[in-house]
């Protein structure tokens, strides 16, 4: 239960950091102790993955189309229209796909987890689980964080494929290129150093989305207003974390592969 005690902002900030570290340690401890909630994990994978697929698919498709339409005039002006599939694949796989899909997932999944757990807190469901002797961290937190960590990379891979297909359709509006040739060029443009870092950073995106959503939900105050605050705060914080993780990932990738 939150004990509201008036304290200076800096102290609250440090307390928040401490709470998050404690929450993380509790999460890690609960992965390895007690029985893993497989059925809840699978349910969360379905909720998080399947129910976000349509949104991720449509957005990725549109991004692929728009990128081709935006890139084409510039590349044509330089006589490099044949570079369009390569340019799209590298930019989409390395950066645009993971970040856009990460942001969409932050909006959809982190808010949904924050609101769900926040409303469970408000309606005393978390307390009820806790005082019954059950383990809410194991049932609610571990399953959700692992589900987002597992599903966001999967959504990202699917979104990348759909985005590249959108690029193919957009390219065929003006030019004519076969699907086989297009994807041959797309795949030829990519190598290990494009794919692996992109997938690894989406794993961190997924973790951040799940962690922030769960933490904001669990740490919300008792009042209906706090459910909205938890959802909103989860989206903002998770989105911010995605950019921070992306910046770190780009730097690490550059140091490891491009120097």
């Amino acid at each position, binding site marked *: *239960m939150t*004990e*509201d*005690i*008036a304290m200076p902002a800096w102290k609250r900030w440090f307390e928040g950091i401490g709470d998050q570290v404690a929450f993380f340690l509790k999460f890690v401890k609960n992965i390895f102790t007690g029985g893993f909630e497989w059925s809840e994990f699978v349910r969360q994978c379905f909720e998080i993955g399947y129910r976000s697929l349509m949104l991720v698919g449509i957005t990725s498709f549109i991004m692929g189309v728009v990128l081709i339409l935006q890139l084409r005039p510039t590349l044509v002006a330089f006589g490099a229209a044949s570079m369009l599939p390569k340019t799209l694949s590298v930019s989409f796989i390395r950066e645009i796909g993971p970040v856009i899909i990460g942001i969409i997932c932050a909006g959809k999944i982190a808010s949904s987890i924050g609101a*769900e757990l926040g409303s*469970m807190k408000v*309606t*005393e*469901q978390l*307390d*009820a*689980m*806790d*005082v*019954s*002797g*059950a*383990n809410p961290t194991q*049932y609610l937190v571990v399953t959700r964080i692992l589900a987002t960590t597992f599903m966001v990379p999967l959504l990202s891979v699917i979104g990348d494929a759909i985005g590249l297909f959108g690029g193919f359709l957009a390219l065929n509006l003006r030019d004519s290129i076969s699907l086989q040739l297009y994807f041959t060029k797309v795949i030829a443009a990519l190598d290990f150093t494009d794919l692996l870092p992109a997938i690894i950073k989406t794993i961190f995106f997924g973790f951040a989305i799940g962690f922030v959503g769960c933490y904001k939900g669990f740490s919300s105050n008792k009042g209906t207003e706090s459910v909205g605050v938890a959802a909103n705060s989860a989206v903002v914080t998770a989105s911010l974390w995605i950019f921070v993780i992306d910046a770190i990932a780009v730097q690490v990738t550059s140091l490891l592969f491009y120097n």
Partner: protein
Amino acid sequence: METTEIKIGNKQPEDTGGETVVCIQGLKKSFGDKHVLKDINLDLKRGENIVILGRSGTGKSVTIQCIVGMLTPDEGSVKVFGQDVSEMSEEELKELRKKIGFLFQSGALFDSMTVRENLEFPLTRVLKLTDQDEIDRRVKEALESVGLADAIDKMPSDLSGGMRKRAGLARTIIVEPEIMLYDEPTTGLDPITSREISDLILSIQKKQKTSSIIITHDMECARIASDRVLIMEDGKYIAEGSFDELSNSKDEIVGSYFKDIS
């Protein structure tokens, strides 16, 4: 406000055997500058039902939250089955909570689960039962005992307020706790449903031999379910006795709780 502590009798239930299951001594709890509990002393005997009456914000719920370790006392001790709750490890607290049932004001049903799944939850997660026949039998029995057998596959959102409370009660008693803590079990219910819940509380005490602390504003619930009544005012108990004894009190504050009782 200056209050004088008065003791009007100290009736104990006949079948208690005298064993104290909850012993609170000198309990103090503050939230910032607000001193909610100032000096609480309470003994709950085995098989006894204690009702705590008091105005909103006097610390009734805080008292029972200290018993299950949801809140840590600032001063004083809360002993359950002889063990100090604030000195327990996480694992010990978890074990203790298996013996305590806590009915929340709202029922606190898990709203993503059906009534059946709500009742199965403590059986599979707390008691770690794996035999599905045993689980089904206990779920059926618990729901029948609260008159909700027909609602087994309903979602909490499809239940009325009274049904939600009864389902919450079924989920709490399904693990057969030794101590029951009720946080305003009849608040927001119509008089008939309130009476049904109060009768249920009494029947649970008789059937499962539980010891209970009931926080309520409902005088009918207090009359039906109590062996002993405590009146709380400004973070302290100001009166203690049986319902009949307190209802005849000449004290102004105590009398104000009973003035509408015919």
